[in-house]
């Protein structure tokens, strides 16, 4: 059974008297264990799709099944639980809490865990995630004391901390230098292969999409190509 299954997803935005079709009938199926790269020009609807897939946004029409459950009919608290337990989300714009240390930022998802995680354990797990991303020595820095790439890595650590089976990353290497990008992508490959985490990532760079096993291309809110990628 597919982990992500969408059926003719639509997302319309009313802007003044015109209507923008950010998603225009997106049907996509992603199985557990896949590593998918989403590509396409700017404004083609990639982020919109990721937000719907991440249960952050609701589509205007269409259906979405996550792990077999009809997400669109769910209430806000159930969706919050799914975001917390099943999905690690890396935002295009980091979305870190200001005036909060890197460590505490990474701890936030654990704070809202349905199964309570004690303060000590929270700290340990957050540190582990930061260490994996090579940021342990920066754990007490606030976001405004970190470089763009470091903030990006804190955001990735936060997405990993809860051991979610699905990782959705919206241009996770957009702010990283080539060397760090390669490190991150190798980490993703490792997570995908060793832990079986399903990864969907948005990227503009062919070098990055080359790490994936499947490439989906968007154009004007539609999927224009969907092919297997041989590494």
């Amino acid at each position, binding site marked *: 059974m597919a982990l992500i299954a969408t059926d003719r997803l639509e997302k319309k935005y009313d802007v003044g008297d015109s209507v923008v079709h950010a998603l225009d009938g997106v049907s996509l199926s992603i199985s557990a264990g896949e590593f998918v790269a989403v590509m396409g020009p700017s404004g083609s609807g990639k982020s919109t799709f990721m*937000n719907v897939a*991440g249960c*952050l*946004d609701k589509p205007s029409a269409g259906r979405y099944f996550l792990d077999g459950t009809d997400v669109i009919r769910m209430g*806000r*608290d159930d969706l*919050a*639980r799914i*975001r*917390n*337990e099943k999905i690690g*989300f890396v*935002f295009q714009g980091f*979305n*870190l*809490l*200001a*005036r*909060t240390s890197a460590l505490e930022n990474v701890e*936030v*998802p654990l*704070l*809202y*865990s349905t199964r*309570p995680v*004690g*303060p000590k354990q929270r700290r340990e797990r957050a540190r582990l995630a930061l260490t994996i991303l090579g940021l342990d020595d920066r754990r007490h820095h606030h976001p405004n004391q970190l470089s763009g790439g470091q903030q990006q890595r804190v955001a990735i650590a*936060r997405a990993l901390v*809860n051991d979610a089976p699905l990782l959705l990353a919206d241009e996770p290497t957009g702010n990283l230098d080539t060397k760090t990008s390669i490190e991150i992508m190798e980490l993703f490959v490792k997570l995908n292969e060793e832990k079986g985490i399903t990864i969907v990532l948005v990227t503009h760079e062919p070098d990055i999409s080359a790490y994936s096993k499947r490439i989906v291309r968007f154009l004007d809110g539609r999927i224009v190509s969907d092919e297997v990628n041989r590494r």
Partner: protein
Amino acid sequence: MIHLPSIAKIALRALRVNKMRSALTMLGIIIGVAAVITMLAVGKGASTKLSEQIATVGSNLLIVVPGSTTAGGVRMGYGSYQSLTRADAEAITSEIPSVFLAAPVISGSGQVVFGNANWATAVYGTTQDMLGVRDWTLAAGRNFYDQEIRSAAKVCIVGQTVADNLFGNANPLDQTIRIRKVPFTVVGVLNAKGQSMMGQDQDDIIYVPVTAAERNLFGRRIPGSVHFIMVKATSTDDLGRAEEQIKQLLRQRHRIGPTQEDDFTVRNLTQMLQLTEQASRVMSLLLAAIAGVSLLVGGIGIMNIMLVSVTERTREIGIRMAVGAKTWDIRTQFIIEALILSMIGGLIGIVLGITLAELLSTLAGWSILISVWAIVMSFGFSALVGIFFGFYPAYKASLLDPIDALRHE
């Protein structure tokens, strides 16, 4: 459900970011709570003092004075109306069951001399019943004998102040003092009673037999007449009945026709004191209302700032929701924040209120009483204000749409 200490930490951090704003927001609560504490301390102090005074004057007291209070608006001058007599007092005691004791009084004042010592004081001619009427006990010596009253014996009982000023440390008993140049033998010394409601020293007094007062000290135009009669009812419940029965008895004794005005007035001392107390209670209520209003204003201030805070932190709320915060997680966070604001305000208010009350007591000499109950209550109330006024902003925050909140600039 999210872990409380962590949430408190988040709240404290948020409040620290805007220290000045948080402090100003607390001001309303601080003032409200300080007002409550001060007002309760002063109010409680006043009422405690009052009941102490009721206790010292003597409880269940009625005072019968000559003249009518309603005589066509013209009141006879004090003492000019010699309608009350010793016999009236005796009749009241013996004929009215709801009366415990009644003592007639001829009041005056005079210079008192003992050796070189010299003191001006109040002199009351009365009977042995006076001590019972006023719940007054003797520090030394004895009460008057009935025989002494009938024979107008020149004996006296002195109050503490008089004893101190005439005798110093010496024993006053069996000494002869001169009241208005007439020698009287001291047979008793009263225990100290302290100040009266009007701030008079109640111990600055000498009691002599009413007969001796009439014959030797203060002559009366009508023999046997007295200035007033002090009556003690058997109980508080009997006060009203005693008052009625005294009126009936005296109208009968004074042969006052059904259409005529009384030639006396019965005053209820306890009632007067209770009226005063009631007035002070009304005053406390008024102050409580003011304190309540300022707490309300403080609460609205908290709500206002929390609403601003929710708007400012929309993105933060969005981020928290995106990683799994549920409706109640967000709601609790903002309620706790409001609660912390109001509780810190409450604590500062309590400290300020106690300081203020102590200042009033030391600088202005007001009697105060700070009760633990008042502190607990006002702290609890400020916490309630926080929860109540924090709820709406928290509710608003919790219903934000995650994606809209994340896009918020």
